[in-house]
C-alpha cells in the first residue's frame, strides 16, 4: 500500500515534471527529503519544523525525524530548521537532482544555552494573529519611540501626545489592556496616564512582536487587547565578539540618535556570554508645516546589560536595563480651563508657536526613569522537561513639571515636580514546560507580583499596594495539518489604597479574582493556506486611577473622577485569521470581535465643577456593555522580479450598548499602499531599494455625541519615500538608508493625538540611518 502511494506520487511527480518541462523549458523540479537527528545522541527528532524560506512551505518531521518536499525548482534553496529548544538553523541546499540530506541538530548543546529561544517559541499563544517587526523592517523604524515603531504593524495605532509621546493601541484598546513585555518581563510603569509612554528603549529589541487578541492566560488576566514583545537577540553561544552601531539623524527636530551594542563569548570562559548596549538621543523643537512648536525636545539616555551562564543541566541569566528621558511638552498645548481650550482650538496658530528652532526644554516637561533587573534560572529536570524561575525588580520614577512654576519664589527655586510618582514592582514566576511528548507540548506555572506606588507631589491617584497571584496551564497539540491549543488561568488580586479626604485617611481594600481561558487552533488545509481561529475570555480589575482619581487633568481643562463602584471588566473575544499565499501573492485577513461586559471608560458627565480656575467639565469613569470589532487586511505581491507591492487596510468599530452610541477614541479606518523596487547593483552594493508609500487616514465619523471638546479632525494622507542600500567593503557590511516622511508637508491633525486641540501635527522630515554590524572575531 505504502509502496503504491509512493509509486503514485512518483508517477505524478514525473508527470508534473514532464508537463512543466514541456511548458517551461528550463525549470526542472526535484525532490528534497531528509532526516533530522540529534547531533549528540543520534536521536531522531520528531516535530521539527522544516521551512522553505522562499515560499514559507513548512513540513513537520515524523516520528523518525523524516521530512520531504517535492516539486522544488532547480537551484539554491534556503531552509530553516526550527526545533523547540534549539536556535533556528539555516541551511542552503543547491538542488541539481533529487537530494536527501541529514540534518544533525546540535540539540542538547544548543538547548542548554538557548532556554530563551524556547521561551520565545512557547511564550505567546500560537493560535493568535501575530505580526512582527524585525530585520530591515525594524531598521526602518530606528530612532523612533516604541509606539511609533509599532505603528507600522497593521492593527496597531497610537494614542499620542504630540510627536514625542506615543502609547501603543492594539485594535483600539490601550493602556492597561495592552501588555508590553520587555525581555520577558511585564513592563510596569505609570500606565494610567494617556500621556505616559512606555519606558523602553526600542534599540534593546532585535524583534518587536505584536500578538493580537487576549493573552491573558499566559501573561496575566489584564492582557485583554494583546501583547507587545520587545525581544533582544539571543546571547552568543560560541566564542565570538560582535558589535553593532546604529546612527540616526533627522531633519525635523534636528534629532540625533546613537546606539551601540557589543556582545561576546570568551573561549577561555566557557558557558558565559554577555552583552552591553546603550542609546543616546537628543532632539529639539518639532516643526509642523508652518511653525515650530516651542519646548518639544526630547533627551534620552538608556543602557542595558545581559549575561548568561549555561551548564549542561541548568543555566542562569541576568538582565538589567535603565531608561532615562526628559520629554518637553509643547507649552502651547495647555489649557487651564474650558475658555482657554476653546480659545486654543479656534486660534489660527497656537500660542507658543515659534519661528525658530531650539533644543532647550523648559516647563512643562516630564522626567522619567525606569529600571528593570531580571534574573532567570532554568533546570532540565528530565528529558524534555524544563523548569524555570524568574524574578524581576522594576522601579519607575515619573516626575511631571507643570507649565507654571509655583508663584512663591522659595518654592519655585526648589524646582520640584508638581506630580511625582514612584512605583516599585517585584514579580516572580515559576514555570514548568514540556517539549514534544507525542505531539503535545505545554507549560504550567504560577506567578506573583507585589507593586507599591507612592506620590510625593500633588494628589491625583492614591498610594497603593497591589498583590497579584496567578496560576495557569497551556497545552498544545501539534500535527502537520492542525494545531490545537487550550489554556486556563486563575488570578487573585488585592488592592489596598491610601489617600486623604479632607484630613481623614482612607484605606479601602478590594479583592478581585476570576478565571481566564483561551482555545484556539491553526488549520493548514494545504501549504498555501493557514487559518487561525481563537476564542477566549479575559478580565481586568479596575485600576486605581479608574477607582479613585480625583482632580484636574493638567493641560486639558477637565476634571477626572474615579468611580468606587467599578466592577471587573470582562471581555469575550473571538478572532479568525486567514493567511493565504499563492506564489508571489500573499494575503492576510484578520477578523476579530471583542464583546465587553463592564467596559471601563471615561464618560463626560453633563455637569461642570466650579473651581478657582473656572468651570471644568467633569469626566467620570463608567462601565458599559460594549463591543469592538474590526478587520485587518494585508495583500502583498511581487511583480516581475524587482517590484514588490504592499497594501494594508484597518477597519474598526466600537459600540457602547449602554448609551447606544459609539465608543470614544477609537482609531478611524486607514489604508496604505507601498511600492518597492529592489535590486543588487554589484557585489559591493547590494540590497538596494527605493520605496514609495502612501497612507490614508479617514476622518473618525463614528464618535459619540457630546463626548469631546472639539469635532474630530479631517481625513488626511501622507506620502513617504525611502532609499536604501548595503555597501560591502572588505567583507564589512554597512547599511545606509535615507527616508522622507510627509513629503508634501501636509497640514493635518490626528483624531488620536491629544495635541490636535492645539496644533497641527509634524511636518516633513528627512532621516538618514546608518547601521554598522561589526564582527571582531568569530571562531565559527
Amino acid at each position, binding site marked *: 500500500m505504502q509502496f503504491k502511494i509512493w509509486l503514485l506520487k512518483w508517477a505524478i511527480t514525473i508527470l508534473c515534471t514532464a508537463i512543466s518541462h514541456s511548458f517551461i523549458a528550463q525549470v526542472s523540479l526535484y525532490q528534497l527529503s531528509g532526516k533530522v537527528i540529534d547531533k549528540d545522541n543520534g536521536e531522531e527528532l520528531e516535530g521539527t519544523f522544516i521551512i522553505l524560506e522562499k515560499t514559507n512551505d513548512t513540513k513537520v518531521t515524523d516520528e523518525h525525524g523524516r521530512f520531504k518536499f517535492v516539486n522544488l525548482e532547480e537551484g539554491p534553496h534556503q531552509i530553516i530548521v526550527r526545533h523547540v529548544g534549539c536556535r533556528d538553523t539555516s541551511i542552503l541546499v543547491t538542488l541539481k537532482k533529487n537530494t536527501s540530506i541529514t540534518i544533525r541538530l546540535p540539540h542538547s548543546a544548543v538547548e542548554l544555552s538557548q532556554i530563551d529561544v524556547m521561551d520565545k517559541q512557547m511564550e505567546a499563544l500560537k493560535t493568535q494573529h501575530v505580526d512582527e517587526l524585525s530585520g530591515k523592517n525594524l531598521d526602518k523604524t530606528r530612532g523612533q519611540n516604541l509606539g511609533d515603531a509599532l505603528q507600522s504593524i497593521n492593527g496597531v495605532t497610537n494614542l499620542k501626545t504630540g510627536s514625542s509621546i506615543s502609547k501603543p493601541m492594539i485594535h483600539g484598546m490601550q493602556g492597561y489592556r495592552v501588555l508590553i513585555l520587555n525581555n520577558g518581563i511585564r513592563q510596569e510603569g505609570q500606565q494610567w496616564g494617556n500621556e505616559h509612554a512606555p519606558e523602553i528603549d526600542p534599540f534593546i529589541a532585535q524583534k518587536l512582536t505584536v500578538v493580537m487578541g487576549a493573552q491573558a492566560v499566559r501573561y496575566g488576566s489584564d492582557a485583554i487587547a494583546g501583547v507587545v514583545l520587545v525581544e533582544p537577540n539571543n546571547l552568543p553561544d560560541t566564542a565570538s565578539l560582535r558589535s553593532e552601531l546604529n546612527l540616526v539623524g533627522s531633519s525635523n527636530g534636528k534629532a540625533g540618535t546613537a546606539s551601540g551594542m557589543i556582545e561576546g563569548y570568551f573561549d577561555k*570562559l566557557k558557558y558565559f556570554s554577555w552583552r552591553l548596549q546603550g542609546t543616546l538621543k537628543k532632539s529639539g523643537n518639532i516643526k509642523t508645516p508652518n511653525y515650530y512648536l516651542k519646548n518639544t525636545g526630547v533627551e534620552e539616555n538608556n543602557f542595558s546589560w545581559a549575561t548568561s551562564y549555561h551548564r549542561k543541566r541548568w543555566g542562569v541569566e541576568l538582565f538589567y536595563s535603565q531608561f532615562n528621558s526628559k520629554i518637553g511638552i509643547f507649552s502651547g498645548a495647555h489649557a487651564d480651563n474650558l475658555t482657554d481650550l476653546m480659545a486654543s482650538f479656534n486660534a489660527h496658530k497656537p500660542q507658543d508657536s515659534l519661528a525658530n528652532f531650539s533644543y532647550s526644554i523648559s516647563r512643562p516637561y516630564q522626567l522619567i526613569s525606569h529600571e528593570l533587573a531580571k534574573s532567570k534560572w532554568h533546570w532540565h529536570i528530565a528529558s524534555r522537561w524544563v523548569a524555570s524561575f524568574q524574578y524581576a525588580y522594576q522601579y519607575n520614577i515619573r516626575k511631571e513639571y507643570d507649565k507654571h512654576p509655583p508663584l*512663591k519664589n522659595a518654592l519655585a527655586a526648589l524646582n520640584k515636580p508638581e506630580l511625582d510618582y514612584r512605583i516599585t514592582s517585584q514579580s516572580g514566576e515559576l514555570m514548568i514546560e514540556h517539549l514534544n511528548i507525542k505531539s503535545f507540548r505545554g507549560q504550567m506555572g504560577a506567578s506573583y507580583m507585589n507593586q507599591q506606588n507612592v506620590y510625593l507631589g500633588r494628589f491625583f491617584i*492614591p498610594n497603593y499596594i497591589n498583590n497579584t497571584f496567578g496560576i495557569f496551564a497551556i497545552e498544545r497539540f501539534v500535527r502537520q495539518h492542525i494545531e490545537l491549543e487550550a489554556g486556563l488561568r486563575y488570578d487573585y488580586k488585592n488592592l489596598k489604597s491610601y489617600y486623604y479626604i479632607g484630613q481623614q485617611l482612607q484605606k479601602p481594600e478590594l479583592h478581585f479574582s476570576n478565571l481566564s481561558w483561551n482555545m484556539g487552533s491553526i488549520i493548514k488545509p494545504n501549504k498555501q493556506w493557514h487559518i487561525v481561529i481563537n476564542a477566549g475570555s479575559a478580565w481586568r480589575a479596575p485600576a486605581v486611577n479608574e477607582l479613585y482619581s480625583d482632580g484636574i487633568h493638567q493641560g486639558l481643562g477637565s476634571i477626572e473622577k474615579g468611580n468606587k463602584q467599578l466592577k471587573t471588566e470582562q471581555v469575550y473575544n473571538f478572532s479568525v485569521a486567514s493567511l493565504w499565499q499563492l506564489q508571489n501573492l500573499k494575503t492576510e485577513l484578520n477578523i476579530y470581535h471583542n464583546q465587553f461586559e463592564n467596559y471601563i471608560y471615561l464618560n463626560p458627565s453633563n455637569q461642570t465643577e466650579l473651581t478657582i480656575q*473656572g468651570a471644568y467639565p467633569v469626566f467620570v469613569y463608567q462601565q458599559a456593555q460594549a463591543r469592538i470589532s474590526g478587520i485587518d487586511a494585508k495583500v502583498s505581491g511581487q511583480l516581475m522580479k524587482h517590484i514588490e507591492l504592499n497594501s494594508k487596510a484597518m477597519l474598526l468599530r466600537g459600540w457602547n450598548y449602554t448609551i447606544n452610541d459609539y465608543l470614544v477614541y477609537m482609531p478611524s479606518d486607514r489604508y496604505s499602499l507601498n511600492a518597492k523596487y529592489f535590486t543588487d547593483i554589484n557585489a559591493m552594493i547590494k540590497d538596494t531599494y527605493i520605496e514609495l508609500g502612501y497612507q490614508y487616514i479617514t476622518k473618525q465619523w463614528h464618535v459619540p455625541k457630546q463626548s469631546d471638546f472639539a469635532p474630530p479632525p479631517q481625513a488626511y494622507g501622507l506620502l513617504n519615500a525611502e532609499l536604501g542600500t548595503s555597501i560591502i567593503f572588505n567583507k564589512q557590511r554597512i547599511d545606509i538608508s535615507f527616508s522622507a516622511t510627509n513629503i508634501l508637508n501636509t497640514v493635518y491633525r490626528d483624531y488620536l493625538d491629544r495635541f490636535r486641540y492645539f496644533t497641527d501635527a509634524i511636518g516633513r522630515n528627512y532621516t538618514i540611518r546608518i547601521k554598522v554590524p561589526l564582527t571582531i572575531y568569530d571562531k565559527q
Partner: protein
Amino acid sequence: MKTTFKFILTISMLSLITMACKKKNDPSPENPIAPNNDETELITTIQLMLEDTVTHSLTTYQFSDVDGVGGNPAIYGGTNQSDSVIHLLQNKVYSCRILLLDETKNPIDTISNEVINEAEDHQVFFNALNPSGTPPSVFLPNSMLTIKYMDLDANNKPLGLNTIWQTPSMPMNKSLLKVELKHQPQIKDGTYTPGNTDIQVEFKVQIN
C-alpha cells in the same frame, strides 16, 4: 573550571549589588502625604475686599475651595454674602483689593503677595476687557461700573490687584462680573489674549 565558575559568580553578585545600589528612600505607601503639609502650591481662595472710600465700611466677597479641586465643592461666601452676588450702592467709589490665599497651609499663605512680586507676568482682568487710558480702566456696560487699575508693574502695565470701582448714578440689575488672573510670562502686553488662566471666578454685581 571551578575558578571560572567562581569568577562568574562573583561578577553576577557584583552586578546584582550595583543594581541594588540605587537606594530608594521613598515613603511607605501606607502614609500618604497629608493635604496640609504637601509642598505643592494651591490657590484655594479669592477675596474681594471692597471698601467705601468715604465711609470706610469694608465688605468682603469670597470664593473658596479649601480642599482644592475634587472633594468638597467650592463655595461663595464672605461677610453678608451667601451667593455670588456683590451688592454695591449707586454713586459710590469703592476701593477693591484682591487677596489670593492658600488656606490648606497653616498659617494661611497669601499667594497674592507672590503675584505682586511677579507683577510683570500677571494681570487681573474684569469681564475679559482690555484696560485703556490713564489710569488704565475698563467700563462694564451691563452694570455701568467703571474699574480703574491703581497698580502698575515695572513696565507700566496694569496689574489689577488694587482697583477703584465707580458705580453709576442709578440702580442696575444683577450682571456678570468675571474676575480673572492671567499668567503671561514674558508675553504680558496689557491685553487679555496672551497667556493662561490662574484664576477665573464669576461673581455677579448688583447696584442698588
